[in-house]
């Protein structure tokens, strides 16, 4: 079974869009194989994925409740949407791992019996950073990660890089020769160290890395800035260039990904904004250099750009029931699905 865990360190950066597109893409794959997809929204009161993809009590849909979760089969689309009964309960790393284990050992079988289907993919939309979900004490405990080392399970940890996170890393890169333990750099170190540790524990089935690195317009930029919107609408923006780069058919290791970012950052130089340049444009310049540096090898298949679609601005607030059908025709989805298929096949 494929497990996709969506993580990010900040809200409003395209996480729901990634989750929706992931669900749509995996449904298309699963339908061909007559399988189902289980999607679980762990965003508590901000459960946009549930709001967009569950029935919302419109029409008749099969439902099922386990001890702590509700599930609803959206049968036409061949997926099951799940969410916690108590939206206010705080998720800890321990309960998260316990939940994964329970899905695998119990809930999956119950849902398959109830809805007469075979679940081949699980998507879990979280509002946590991967460092929150995978702390050392949890993943170094062998009983917690035994699920991840089974050859029949494949894990993908989707991480949406945001400019704040990148900014921390870049500051850390810039301070390489300061020869001191700077408290402002501790989190950058943790992100790097934890990335390597998670990769070591959860790389099974010949996957070099479980990480899928995502760049989206709102993660590296800010779509409330009209200049950036114009930029992202143009065919020259680095997200599009990354999407159009040939697929390398290989995954990048976490440390290699960071090394490429570091080189791109060094190519651009110290943070020195050009005239009229915003900090987002500065990051976009770095992303542009990243693409130049990796172009010979092609886009690693676990680096996924999300393109900008003007018609999706504010889509999570819309009540358009046809949004999903509309989305199928959009370049952002077509490109995402292509990247997803390359990743999992």
């Amino acid at each position, binding site marked *: 079974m494929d497990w996709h865990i969506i993580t990010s360190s900040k809200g409003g950066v395209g996480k729901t869009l990634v989750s929706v597109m992931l669900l749509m893409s995996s449904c298309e794959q699963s339908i061909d194989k007559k399988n189902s997809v289980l999607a679980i929204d762990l965003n508590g009161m901000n459960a946009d994925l549930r709001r967009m993809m569950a029935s919302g009590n419109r029409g008749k849909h099969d439902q099922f409740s386990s001890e702590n979760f509700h599930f609803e089969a959206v049968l036409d689309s061949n997926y099951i949407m799940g969410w916690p009964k108590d939206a206010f309960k705080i998720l800890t790393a321990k309960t998260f791992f316990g939940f994964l284990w329970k899905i695998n050992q119990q809930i999956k079988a119950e849902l398959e019996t109830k809805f007469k289907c075979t679940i081949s993919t699980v998507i879990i939309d979280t509002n946590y950073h991967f460092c929150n979900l995978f702390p050392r004490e949890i993943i170094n405990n062998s009983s917690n990660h035994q699920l991840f080392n089974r050859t029949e399970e494949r894990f993908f940890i989707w991480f949406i890089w945001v400019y704040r996170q990148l900014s921390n890393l870049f500051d850390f890169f810039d301070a390489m020769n300061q020869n001191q333990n700077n408290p402002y750099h501790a989190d950058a170190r943790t992100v790097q*160290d934890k990335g390597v540790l998670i990769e070591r524990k959860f790389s099974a089935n010949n996957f070099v890395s479980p990480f899928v690195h995502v760049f989206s317009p709102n993660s590296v930029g800010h779509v409330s800035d009209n200049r950036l919107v114009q930029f992202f609408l143009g065919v*020259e923006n680095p997200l599009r260039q990354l999407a159009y780069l040939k697929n390398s058919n290989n995954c990048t*290791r976490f440390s290699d990904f960071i*090394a490429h970012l570091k080189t791109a950052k060094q190519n651009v130089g110290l943070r020195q904004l050009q005239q009229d340049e915003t900090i987002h444009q500065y990051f976009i310049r770095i992303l542009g250099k990243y693409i130049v540096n990796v172009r010979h090898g092609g886009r690693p298949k676990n680096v996924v750009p999300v393109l900008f679609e003007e018609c999706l601005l504010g889509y999570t607030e819309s009540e358009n029931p046809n949004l999903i059908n509309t989305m199928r025709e959009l370049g952002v989805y077509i490109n995402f699905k292509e990247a997803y298929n390359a990743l999992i096949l």
Partner: protein
Amino acid sequence: MKVIVYRLDNVTLSRQCDEPFDISGVGTCYLFSKSEDNNVLKDFIQLYHDRDDTIFLIPEILKSPFAESLGGINNKNHTPLLWKQYDDNDLGGMETTGIIKNKIIEYVKTDNPSPDQIEFVETLGGNSNFLDKKMKIVIYKADKDVPFATDYDQLGSTDNIIFSNRQDKVTDFNSKSVDELKHLVQPWLPKRVGSEADNTIFYVPYDMWNKFIDILERLINGFKEMMVKGEKTSVPTSQQLGLGKGSSLASFYDEMEIQKVLEEPTEKNMIEAVKELEELLNEIVTSSNEVDAIFVYDLTNNLVLYNSTASTEREEDLPKFLTERKNYGASVANFGDLRNVSTVLNTFGDDTKRGKLQRTMFQLTNGVLNVYFFDEYTVPIAVVFVSAKPTGLGSLVLEGTKRIDTIIEKLRPLL
């Protein structure tokens, strides 16, 4: 990054290397156990090899995988690492050494562990420069003749070879063919660049260096494209080479004038190479009357690889190009279609025995593009000189002709 090799016999550590500890005045320490996975070691080297605030504590058994991993990152398989005997000062003195040993002992899985069980044996690095080993060619001029009569001599060690500048030797050298001269250079050459002896420095007289480069090109495939310009300050002093003070060789060495340094690129000087190229493009744009922008374009991936960023007085004529979009914008997003121009004209040139397409001028209503095509690199590229005015064609051509070789020289290691 500094690496300390520790000895701790028959003991297993419970600590994971990814759980570093900070020691004030020393840095962030990563403790590796003897069972550490080589891939993880490589990952951590990849992340921290260039950081002076990071210390790796590795068991003796990991020395070899460490060297191998380091070589892999630096694109060299067997980089000779200069380990030295450990000194307490390597970890900031006796007190901090004791603190670190106590820290390690917290993770020893035996009864009554003691810091005395731990011995720090060897040290590597202390700064990031130990990763920068590479073959160098130092081109020199001197008023005096070298103080030896042979074709070449060693400077301190077999890693440093100086070729004679005596007129008869230079004349003889230049009169021979590359094949005849190969035997002179080959014994000192690494099996391939980046191999065991890649810290070799060749000192070559100015009047010999073109031929010398031809020899290396013959011996090492792709040598000319590989080498980049190095810093004169990176050449060791006579003292660093261990030449006896006051010796005739030391006097000659100290008095000779270094003309140029060529070296094998490392990650560090690849970054420098980008900087130098962009500086050159800016210098051309700001000093030329007719060139308002230059960019290097990857015709396969539709990417602007490098571009001038400097403004010119005529900038207002290229607002979208230079001011608004910074990265050249949609104007060049489909520039890759120009590869068809190159293909068509190369075929024509081949069929009619007129040769390959070298450059093309595009006259626009309010500007001119002078485009040079190159298809001998990994992907076909175009170097584009842009004029914001429709006139001044002759000057634009002249500037291109004058500058294109220098641009390519800077660009070559990056392609």
